[in-house]
């Protein structure tokens, strides 16, 4: 401790000498990061746990109630529906994003004119603020003025209007579609980067050995692409599992709570209704799943790195 104060108050020379020491330099370089992360990640995490074992509301300091809040949340029908929705939403969107993203990556992995240009444009759904692009979709799903309804009617598929976001089953489908739309560019571009690290000679060698296109994909491309794919999928799973913006803009959890996810329901209860403890508990309910994914990812990365 004495040396720290000396470093702070000492002459420039002692300061320089301290920075020559690897440990002090590392300490100095890491300090701002550690302070920020401790204040705004670790502290809120502890505070969230504290909140969820009390019965705090906005403006009303709570008292310790043990696991009563968790029990209440667990027995809440809407919470269970939100939990199920989140799992369903994450699973379905991830499968589609991976399949379509891989397809797009394979298309972009060829040589053609204007490739850089097209690649730049394809990332737009991922770059543009999600809330804003989701509004464009909400406008396209509008019950009265939907351009999709117009299009479907023009090509003769429907003669009754479709109430895209007003029907519980359709609404979830729409949210999934928008999430896939936003996520495919991310999958495509990262998988494309993975594809480009695969040497073309491997493909040539396999072709000479008589492998057809399908076999070359299955036995050369896919195994080599697997590490990148795993990491991309795990990232996407975390983001999708904790998603908020899409549902907030498109349906706000409706109709009749049919499209709530953990995050939107936590917002509904914790912020809109002001039941802070319940809201914090609903958010924390995501933690076990996120924790498992993170552990899995850490183990996986370590295995890949040590190989």
């Amino acid at each position, binding site marked *: 401790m004495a040396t720290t104060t000396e470093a702070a108050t000492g002459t420039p020379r002692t300061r*320089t000498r301290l920075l020559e020491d690897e440990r002090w330099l590392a300490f100095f370089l890491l300090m701002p*990061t550690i302070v920020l992360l401790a204040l705004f990640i670790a502290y809120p995490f502890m505070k969230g746990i504290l909140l969820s074992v009390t019965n705090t509301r906005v403006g009303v300091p709570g008292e310790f109630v043990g696991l009563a809040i968790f029990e209440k949340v667990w027995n809440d029908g809407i919470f269970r529906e939100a939990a199920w929705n989140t799992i369903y939403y994450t699973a379905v969107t991830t499968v589609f994003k991976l399949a379509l993203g891989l*397809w797009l990556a394979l298309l972009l992995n060829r040589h053609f004119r204007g490739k*850089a240009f097209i690649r730049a444009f394809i990332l737009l759904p991922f770059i543009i603020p999600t809330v804003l692009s989701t509004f464009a979709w909400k406008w396209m799903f509008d019950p009265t003025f939907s351009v999709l309804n117009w299009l479907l009617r023009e090509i003769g598929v429907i003669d009754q209007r479709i109430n895209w976001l007003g029907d519980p089953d359709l609404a979830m489908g729409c949210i999934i579609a928008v999430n896939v739309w936003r996520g*495919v560019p991310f999958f495509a571009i*990262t998988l494309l980067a993975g594809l480009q690290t695969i040497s073309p000679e491997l493909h040539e060698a396999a072709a000479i050995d008589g492998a057809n296109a399908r076999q070359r994909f299955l036995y050369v491309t896919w195994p080599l692409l697997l590490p990148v794919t795993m*990491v991309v999928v795990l990232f996407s799973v975390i983001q999708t599992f904790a998603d*908020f*913006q899409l549902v907030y803009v498109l349906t706000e959890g409706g109709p009749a709570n049919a499209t709530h996810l953990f995050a939107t329901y936590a917002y509904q209860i914790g912020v809109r209704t002001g039941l802070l403890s319940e809201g914090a508990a609903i958010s924390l309910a995501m933690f076990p799943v996120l924790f498992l*994914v993170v552990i899995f990812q850490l183990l996986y990365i370590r295995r890949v790195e040590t190989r």
Partner: protein
Amino acid sequence: MIEGAKWRRWVYFHIPLAGFLIWLLFPFYWMMITTVRPDGELYRPWNAPNYTPFWTNNPTFEHIRYLFAETLFATWLWNTMVIALAATAISLVCGVFAGYALSRLKFPFAGSLGTMIFVTYLVPQTLLFIPLADIIRNFRIGDSPWALILTYPTFLIPFCTWLMMGYFKAIPKELEECARIDGASRWQAMIYIILPVAVPGILSAGIFAFTLSWNEFIYALVFLSSPQEKTVPVGVVSELIRGDVFFWGPLMAGALLGSIPVAIAYSFFVEHYVSGLTGSVKG
């Protein structure tokens, strides 16, 4: 790469690629066309006769005028810009420092610290927003830009650190050792020798952090309440809708104009952005 007859090329390449492009870009076209379409044409039912949704012969700037004259849109743009730039600057400084320390220096607990920072990289904002809102209130920075400038780095720093570690690891140690032999201190070697070489990495991290801050929604939604403090995404969501009435013209104009700063930043640094994106998952 493309082999076989011409029709095969169409079926396996041109048509799918065109399909992807239309699907991925149509919403932006729809934003644009709605922005310049007069209200009379906008609110025509889906089954009205002679309806040409994909084009308009009477373009108008009325919605854009409304946005700037009748709403606080210009203020939101300014707020978002200030917050995104400040949060990016803080995150870059922290991320570059931390990345350098973790990839180049030997010190106790280096490994576990690196793992901890990586784990915070994966913490989604929606996990902590309720207790964090409480903390922001207690720190008395609620409803001010500081609420976001200080909290955005929590999801930007881990990413910047992660990306910079990759860059620093790729720079040969000899470069630094040469400078040290010539009499540079560790600090000088880092600032004058290593940082300039790492500029592409810093640009990637910066552009990525900037788009992420511009995109952020839930913190801005929960921590800010006065209309003049809001960012573009939150302002558009909360102030352009009156009850159940959506003003689609101004809404789409807001969505379009609110996207332009990110799109411009992105277009200048596409390559850096892409390498940041792919670096962010490869490490």
